[in-house]
């Protein structure tokens, strides 16, 4: 108390004494109280006299003398000027209260004392406890929430992470201190994250960003990261509190959906068909670009939003031109659960000169529970339709031309028939004259002629005969071409046997072998007779100089056909001339050796053609020939006219 006036000292002593704070003066040697303020006496419940009998560690039960001496050693040594520590004070009634002790050494070296100024920190302790509890609750909460959570300092360094953070990332707190969090971010996106984080720090604004964090398994997942700045009373940021919410599945789902949507969009926009989607209220939800283009309208037009407004601009009609009420429009029909497939309609703009032909298809598709969408696909078939019409016109035109040509041909054919009629009539009459008068001449006036003259006459008659044969054959051929064919069931064995009856004389010295399976065929009997008779004629004719002539007639059925063959062992022919033998008037031999008009095989071919069959032959010069006739087993190609029985 040096330097103070006595008066001042007395006042200070009074103040100390009366101080409501606990103030003690303790003998450093004995550690007994030498002084205790009123406040101290009141707080502890001891009066000053009793207190003078007590030591400091009597009211501070956490210490014994030894411990206390160790504690105050730095003060005693002069190493420290003041010692501040917390401990408990024991009241006279046995209760305790927390205090903060400010202890310093006072006095001179002879008499050392400790001045202890005590703060009752019960309230503070209570507040601290509350804070600790609150903190504990906070930790429980942040360790319970599904998010990763952390606290960052105003400079952005992390000071705390919740357990989930460590569990997810597989890290330990030491690693995460400061900027350790960088390690668990996807390096690809980290620079961006850091920049955003720094921006948020600078602006003191909430941070909100999707980031990719690596899990303990090494896989990255997407987290929605949010951080809020915590500000003190002055509005300064003291901390940041952040969370990371796992939105990986959600984001990937969204991404997949977006991808699918984008793909569908691409498909729809690139379809060549128009696509219009409608709901049940006839609201037109979507038009793809092809549909817009087809209708020659911009996508901004209001009237495309529903069918009624659309109908104010367009008119639909059938291909034949009957205008359709909206109830019969494709979309209306689809909405009534009808499936449309290529419904072809004409469409016309009411306000201007525009018309197309569209083909509509579509149906209602249901999804979820009872929800549905009507979709209508549209193809512009205008060009195809026009082409079809042009084709139809061309076809009609062609048919007209064909019918014209046909009638011309019919006329020509008629002319040809008339020609044949003339041949038959007009050429035969003079021939008959020649034949008749040469006959009469030879009969009645033969004696007027010499031998040579009679020879000449005979040659005239021979020529006449040849010409007659030629005309008869020609007529038969033309008749074969023109006549109507019948389709008659023919029994081959009977038919051939009857035919051979006509060759009785000619086959007197010929071995005739007939091996014909008994199966009925359907053919034109006259045509078949002509074909077979000519073949038998030929077989006999060309084997006339053969020592032991054999004619073999076979018939076999196979593969829906009947094949008849006529084989001889006559002179045969060179296959080099094969193509010639069926041509009309073609002959391979001199008339004096083998008489004939050269029409026979042409007749055979014509007859077979007309019956829907064919003829072919095999031969070797000098080794006989075999001719085949093939006919379909059931019916003939040309089956008209009444049955004619011949043969």
């Amino acid at each position: 108390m040096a330097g103070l006036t006595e008066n001042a000292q007395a006042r200070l002593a009074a103040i100390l004494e009366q101080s409501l704070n606990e103030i003690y003066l303790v003998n450093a040697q004995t550690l007994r109280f030498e002084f205790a303020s009123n406040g101290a006496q009141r707080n502890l419940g001891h009066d000053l006299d009793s207190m003078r009998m007590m030591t400091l560690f009597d009211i501070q039960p956490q210490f014994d003398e030894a411990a206390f001496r160790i504690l105050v050693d730095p003060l005693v040594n002069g190493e420290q000027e003041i010692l501040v520590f917390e401990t408990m004070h024991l009241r006279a009634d046995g209760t305790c209260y927390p205090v903060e002790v400010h202890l310093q050494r006072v006095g001179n070296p002879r008499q050392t004392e400790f001045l202890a100024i005590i703060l009752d920190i019960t309230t503070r302790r209570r507040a601290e406890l509350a804070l600790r509890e609150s903190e504990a609750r906070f930790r429980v909460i942040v360790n319970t929430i599904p998010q990763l959570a952390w606290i960052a300092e105003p400079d952005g360094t992390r000071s705390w992470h919740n357990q989930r953070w460590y569990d997810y990332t597989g890290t330990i707190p030491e690693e995460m201190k400061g900027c350790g969090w960088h390690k668990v971010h996807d390096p690809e996106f980290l620079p961006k994250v850091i920049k955003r984080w720094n921006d948020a720090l600078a602006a003191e604004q909430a941070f909100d960003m999707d980031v990719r964090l690596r899990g303990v398994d090494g896989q990255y997942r997407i987290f929605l990261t949010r951080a809020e700045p915590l500000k003190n009373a002055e509005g300064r940021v003291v901390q940041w509190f952040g969370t990371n919410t796992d939105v990986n599945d959600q984001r990937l789902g969204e991404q997949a959906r977006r991808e699918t949507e984008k793909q569908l969009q691409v498909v729809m926009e690139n379809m060549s068909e128009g696509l219009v989607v409608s709901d049940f209220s006839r609201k037109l939800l979507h038009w793809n670009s092809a549909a817009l283009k087809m209708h020659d309208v911009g996508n901004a037009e209001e009237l495309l939003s529903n069918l009624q407004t659309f109908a104010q601009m367009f008119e639909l009609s059938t291909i034949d031109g009957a205008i359709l009420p909206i109830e019969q429009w494709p979309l209306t029909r689809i909405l009534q659960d009808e499936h449309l497939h290529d419904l072809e309609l004409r469409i016309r703009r009411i306000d201007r000169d525009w018309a197309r032909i569209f083909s509509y298809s579509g149906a209602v598709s249901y999804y979820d529970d009872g929800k549905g969408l009507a979709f209508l696909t549209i193809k512009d078939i205008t060009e195809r339709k026009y082409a079809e019409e042009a084709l139809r016109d061309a076809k009609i035109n062609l048919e007209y031309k064909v019918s014209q040509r046909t009638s011309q041909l019919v006329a020509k054919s008629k002319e040809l028939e008339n020609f044949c009629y003339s041949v038959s009539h007009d050429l035969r009459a003079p021939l008959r004259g020649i034949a008749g008068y040469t006959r009469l001449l030879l009969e009645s006036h033969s004696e007027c002629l010499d031998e040579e003259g009679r020879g000449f006459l005979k040659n005239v008659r021979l020529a006449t005969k040849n010409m007659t044969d030629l005309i008869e054959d020609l007529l038969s051929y033309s008749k074969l071409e023109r006549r109507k064919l019948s389709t008659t069931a023919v029994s081959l064995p009977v038919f051939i046997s009857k035919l051979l009856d006509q060759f009785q004389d000619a086959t007197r010295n010929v071995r005739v072998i007939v091996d014909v399976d008994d199966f009925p065929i359907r053919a034109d009997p006259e045509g078949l007779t002509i074909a077979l008779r000519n073949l038998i004629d030929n077989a006999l004719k060309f084997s006339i100089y053969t020592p032991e002539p054999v004619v073999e007639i076979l018939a076999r059925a196979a593969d829906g056909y009947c094949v008849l063959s006529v084989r001889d062992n006559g002179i045969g022919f060179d296959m080099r001339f094969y193509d010639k033998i069926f041509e009309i008037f073609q002959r391979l031999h001199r008339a004096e050796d083998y008489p004939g008009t050269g029409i026979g095989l042409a007749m055979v071919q014509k007859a077979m053609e007309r019956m829907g069959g064919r003829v072919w032959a095999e031969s070797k010069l000098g080794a006989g020939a075999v001719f085949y006739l093939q006919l379909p087993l059931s019916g003939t190609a040309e089956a008209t006219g009444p049955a004619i029985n011949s043969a």
Partner: protein
Amino acid sequence: MNITLPILLIEDNPMDVDLTRRAFIRHNLANPLEVLRDGQEALDFIVGWRTGEPAPSVILLDLKLPKVSGLEVLRNIRAHPNLGTVPVVVLTSSAEDADIHEAYAMGANSYIVKPVDFEKFIDVARQIELYWTVLNMPCFSKHV
């Protein structure tokens, strides 16, 4: 039966007429052969025929005649009230199905294709005469 009833030949070709005549002469034809040379002459004959005149025992008719066709002549014969029942034998060069069909459809009694060969023609003449003037019983019309 009056066997001297004439045979009426309607034929334009003079050679055919001559040969037909000769063919019939071969067989000492009892019936006179009367000849009409074209379709018009035939029609005139039909129109000019008087009731009571002897009708031909048989008419030999060529189809291809100048002016009026043989089929037209045949139609007129058949339409005639009294000559309608006289047998008509078509004697022609045509073997066309259409001709044959039409001739019969119009009431021809027979259809013979004239053979080119004279021998055969003579035979045809003989058979015609035998059949139509001897064997065949003509229909005596109510006018006789």
